[in-house]
């Protein structure tokens, strides 16, 4: 018996002489005739299974999914039965069919063991398909892996180079940590083989083994060094790949390989200068694959090392100037060169050259090149802002690109470039972008504009104008925080209130049903400063509406309240605002009262409650109304500035005071002062007896019972306004939370809303312990504050301590500066990290900690995945 596999498919001939194109009588057709004869003979004894080719035809001929399933199921059942019968003759063909079926998405795990049997066969044909099957079908199941490890071990010792090649290729694709440990020594031996074909594959296997099990790196070091002294490009490129991985793995190895910089420079120089070599040429560039790998390794070796950077300056300049840029391949190399130039300690002239290359990229017709240019500028903007600033107009141009990836990058980059000098121009462009942007961009873009404006606004007036434009352009996509920010800004800027109220009035006159946040800000503002709108002194620079009557205002309010498209929150704002207007207006009280009365029977319980409460203010408590609805005092507390990229880039670092005030502002104010605040605004003069929250809840029943209940009753009505004096502590929706006894409720809530804190140890190694204390400020939903503290339990001083953290793209990370870079024995260093989790996905963080200890520089890397669930909310 002899197994064979689709023999008529194999061709020895080079493709140009492939028999499909040369049907003449030749060696291949002899073999084919031969094989067919043999198949006829063998079918006499046993029916041959369908050939792979025929199965594919059958499946392709199926017209419906059901039909295809029938064919596949029938074939699978047949294949299973042959597996049970231990039929080795057709195993190869059956596995090949199974692999095709697997690719269509059908289960094929039952072929796993059969693949191993094929691998164990002495025939190359069987091994080739067997290993292919193993790479496609095997998962990391322990039992099968033991078997395949043995097979691989045998084949790694084979005398045929192609059998060794198959084994190495498979090991490279599916090495589990156990396999890596068991076979590392075999791979190390093969790296020293005399055969280049085996050496290059072994080098990449070593690369994968180190990836899976970093501590196995040591044993490969001696054999690795010699790989880059080769002429063969395959061995060279795999060698460079392996060294790159090793250098990224440990600082010691990185220092060990510093001495190969001259070798790498020489190889690169030869590649550029050695004329045309047909074997490695890609549209006029000599081996771009190897060039890119070398450039990347140079970048890692030259990072933070002046001597190594010095040694590669010249060659980088040469590559940057000599590379042909008409094709993608030339730009590939330039791109890598720019990354290297920006990452190492390169000369300033070279950096200018690099940024100019990126500038040229931005003007390229090829979208892909423009995309990488924006991406790279985003990386370098932190290193050299002024160089990137020069390309600002081109970057702004990319905001109009039809490709969404490019627009996103351009937007991020634009915000990184905003500073106090260019804010007016940049905002003009970004507001235009915001108007036309896809919905997915609007929220992020509007929040970023608000943050930039807050930071760099040239004056209050401009700031307000910008905020209003955001509210108009982004409509319902505006986040809640923008509403709160705008209201606060108006409240604290007394000089601009007249302007604000008339600007907002004009916006409110138009249809605002797709701009709820705008309607909320506008009604709040008109409620507070309605008198300025109607009776305020006309100022020369504000285009105040002339001849506006109270009735017109009330008509618009009526439209807002009756419009079914307005949200309940907007209606709450509107209703409260209307109530306030009753004290601002000089005559229209009766009409206002009627509107409010109709809400006494509103279907929505919250609106109904408000309607009833407010109408009480017109009746039983009419004498209290003017005092209760007085204008709010300006809110002056600083906002927590979640600045993300904007804060870090423009070259104006925040001062220490700023940072501490930011932190303080994010903690909620103490309860008693809030209560005092409340009472202060109501102006009833009963402060001391209720200044303690416990007494307000418990002792009320005993002591001055009536007074207090009365007080609470009236406060209740006023609560929505009064609570807003809490500095930015609640978003508007919280202000209007549907509670019956607002004051007491609010107090109980705020006393229970403590900052959730939690600690976790993320690293405890060699006397260095790093702890995270997690804190979620209750007022900002997606912000997580991490207080990192690094303690030194050793006896030696740790210097150059550098703590770096990276988070996935969906998060924003802001790191404040550390308290020190030196940790004395039993001392500690702390640093604050702020993570904004917009997408509410589990947080992952990669850490890189470097310091100089008693034994020299140390680099630790770790990943933190076990953040407690509180951080996900």
């Amino acid at each position, binding site marked *: 018996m002899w197994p064979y596999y689709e023999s008529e498919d194999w061709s020895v001939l080079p493709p140009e002489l492939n028999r499909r194109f040369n049907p003449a009588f030749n060696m291949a057709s002899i073999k084919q005739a031969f094989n067919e004869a043999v198949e006829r003979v063998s079918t006499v004894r046993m029916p041959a299974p369908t050939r792979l080719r025929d199965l594919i035809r059958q499946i*392709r001929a199926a017209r419906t999914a059901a039909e295809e399933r029938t064919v596949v199921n029938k074939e699978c059942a047949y294949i299973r039965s042959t597996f049970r019968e231990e039929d080795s003759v057709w195993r190869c063909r059956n596995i090949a069919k199974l692999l095709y079926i697997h690719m269509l998405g059908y289960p094929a795990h039952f072929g796993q063991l059969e693949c191993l049997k094929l691998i164990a066969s002495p025939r*190359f044909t069987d091994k080739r398909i067997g290993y292919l099957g193993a790479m496609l079908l095997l998962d990391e199941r322990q039992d099968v892996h033991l078997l395949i490890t043995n097979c691989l071990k045998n084949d790694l010792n084979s005398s045929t180079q192609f059998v060794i090649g198959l084994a190495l290729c498979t090991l490279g694709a599916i090495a589990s940590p156990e396999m890596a440990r068991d076979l590392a020594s075999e791979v190390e031996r093969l790296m020293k083989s005399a055969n280049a074909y085996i050496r290059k594959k072994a080098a990449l296997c070593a690369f994968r083994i180190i990836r899976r099990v970093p501590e196995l790196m040591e044993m490969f070091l001696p054999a690795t060094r010699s790989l880059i002294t080769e002429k063969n490009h395959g061995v060279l490129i795999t060698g460079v790949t392996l060294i790159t991985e090793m250098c990224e793995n440990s600082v010691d190895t990185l220092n060990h390989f510093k001495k190969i910089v001259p070798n790498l420079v020489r190889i690169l120089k030869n590649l550029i200068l050695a004329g045309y070599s047909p074997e490695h040429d890609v549209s006029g560039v000599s081996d771009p694959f190897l060039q890119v790998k070398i450039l990347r390794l140079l970048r890692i070796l030259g990072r933070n090392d002046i001597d190594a950077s010095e040694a590669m300056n010249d060659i980088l300049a040469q590559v940057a100037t000599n590379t042909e840029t008409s094709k993608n391949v030339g730009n590939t190399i330039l791109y890598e060169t720019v990354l290297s130039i920006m990452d190492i300690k390169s000369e300033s002239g070279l950096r200018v050259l690099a940024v100019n290359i990126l500038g040229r990229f931005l003007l390229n017709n090829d979208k892909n090149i423009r995309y*990488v240019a924006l991406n790279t500028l985003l990386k370098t903007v932190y290193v050299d802002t002024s160089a990137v600033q020069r390309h600002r107009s081109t970057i702004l141009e990319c905001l109009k690109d039809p490709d969404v990836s490019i627009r996103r990058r351009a937007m991020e980059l634009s915000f990184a470039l905003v500073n106090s000098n260019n804010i007016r121009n940049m905002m003009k462009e970004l507001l235009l972008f915001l108007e036309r942007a896809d919905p997915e961009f609007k929220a992020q873009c509007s929040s970023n504009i608000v943050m930039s404006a807050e930071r760099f606004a040239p004056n209050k007036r401009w700031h307000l104008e910008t905020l209003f434009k955001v509210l108009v352009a982004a409509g319902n996509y505006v986040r809640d925080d923008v509403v709160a920010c705008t209201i606060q800004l108006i409240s604290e800027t007394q000089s601009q209130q007249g302007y604000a109220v008339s600007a907002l009035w004009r916006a409110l006159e138009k249809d605002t049903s797709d701009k709820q946040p705008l309607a909320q800000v506008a009604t709040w503002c008109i409620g507070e400063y309605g008198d300025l709108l109607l009776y305020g002194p006309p100022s020369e620079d504000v285009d105040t509406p002339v001849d506006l009557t109270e009735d017109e205002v009330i008509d618009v309010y009526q439209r807002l309240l009756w419009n079914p498209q307005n949200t309940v929150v907007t209606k709450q704002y509107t209703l409260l605002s209307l109530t306030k207007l009753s004290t601002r207006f000089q005559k229209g009280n009766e009409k206002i009262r009627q509107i409010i009365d109709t809400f006494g029977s509103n279907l929505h319980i919250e609106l109904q409650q408000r309607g009833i409460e407010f109408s009480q203010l017109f009746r039983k408590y009419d004498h209290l109304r003017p005092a209760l609805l007085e204008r709010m005092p300006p809110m002056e507390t600083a906002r927590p500035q979640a600045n993300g990229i904007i804060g870090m880039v423009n070259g104006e670092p925040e001062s220490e005071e700023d940072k501490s005030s930011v932190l303080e502002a994010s903690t909620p104010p103490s309860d008693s002062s809030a209560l005092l605040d409340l009472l202060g605004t109501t102006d009833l003069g009963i402060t001391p007896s209720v200044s303690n929250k416990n007494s307000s809840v418990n002792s009320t029943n005993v002591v001055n019972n009536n007074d207090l209940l009365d007080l609470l009753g009236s406060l209740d009505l006023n609560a929505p306004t009064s609570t807003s004096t809490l500095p930015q502590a609640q978003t508007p929706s919280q202000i209007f939370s549907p509670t019956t006894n607002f004051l007491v409720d609010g107090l109980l809530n705020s006393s229970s809303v403590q900052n959730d804190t939690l600690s976790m140890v993320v690293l405890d190694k060699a006397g260095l312990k790093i702890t995270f204390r997690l804190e979620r400020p209750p007022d900002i939903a997606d912000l997580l504050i991490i207080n990192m503290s690094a303690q030194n339990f050793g006896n030696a001083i740790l210097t150059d301590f550098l703590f770096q953290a990276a988070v996935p793209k969906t998060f924003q990370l802001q790191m404040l500066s550390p308290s020190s870079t030196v940790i004395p024995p039993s001392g500690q260093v702390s640093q604050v990290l702020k993570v904004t989790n917009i997408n509410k996905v589990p947080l992952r963080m990669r850490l890189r900690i470097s310091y100089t200890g008693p034994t020299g520089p140390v680099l630790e890397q770790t990943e933190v995945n076990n953040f407690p669930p509180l951080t996900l909310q």
Partner: protein
Amino acid sequence: MMQFMLLFSRQGKLRLQKWYVAHPDKLKKKITRELITTILARKPKMSSFLEWKDVKVVYKRYASLYFCCAIEQNDNELLTLEIIHRYVELLDKYFGSVCELDIIFNFEKAYFILDELLVGGEIQETSKKNVLKAIAAQDLLQEDEAVEGALREIGLL
């Protein structure tokens, strides 16, 4: 390091899949499905890059086939396009002006060629000639085995 490579048709049919990271079968299918839908929905005017989960996806269409690679954050996107192009050139040389049908009916050979170009998600050979030579030599080895088997069967050996 390349994480995986997928070849699929304009109709969304998978033609080749090569995984260099260990994922359970279910997840592989999910990733494949999602990526195919996302890429097919993109317009020809758009760039070849896609930021998707924590990987960068680089894809390019050749005739009716999409070649799609997932790479890590540090990898060079433009070079990945060159790797894709190199693979297409190799297929073309091997099959003689390759078309989708060649890859459907000879998918195993498409895998063999890929395995001579990449190992463990990294490029192992930058010379086209060397890759084709290695493939031809291995094909020859199979051929010899087939002939030998046939001769033995009919009693000539």
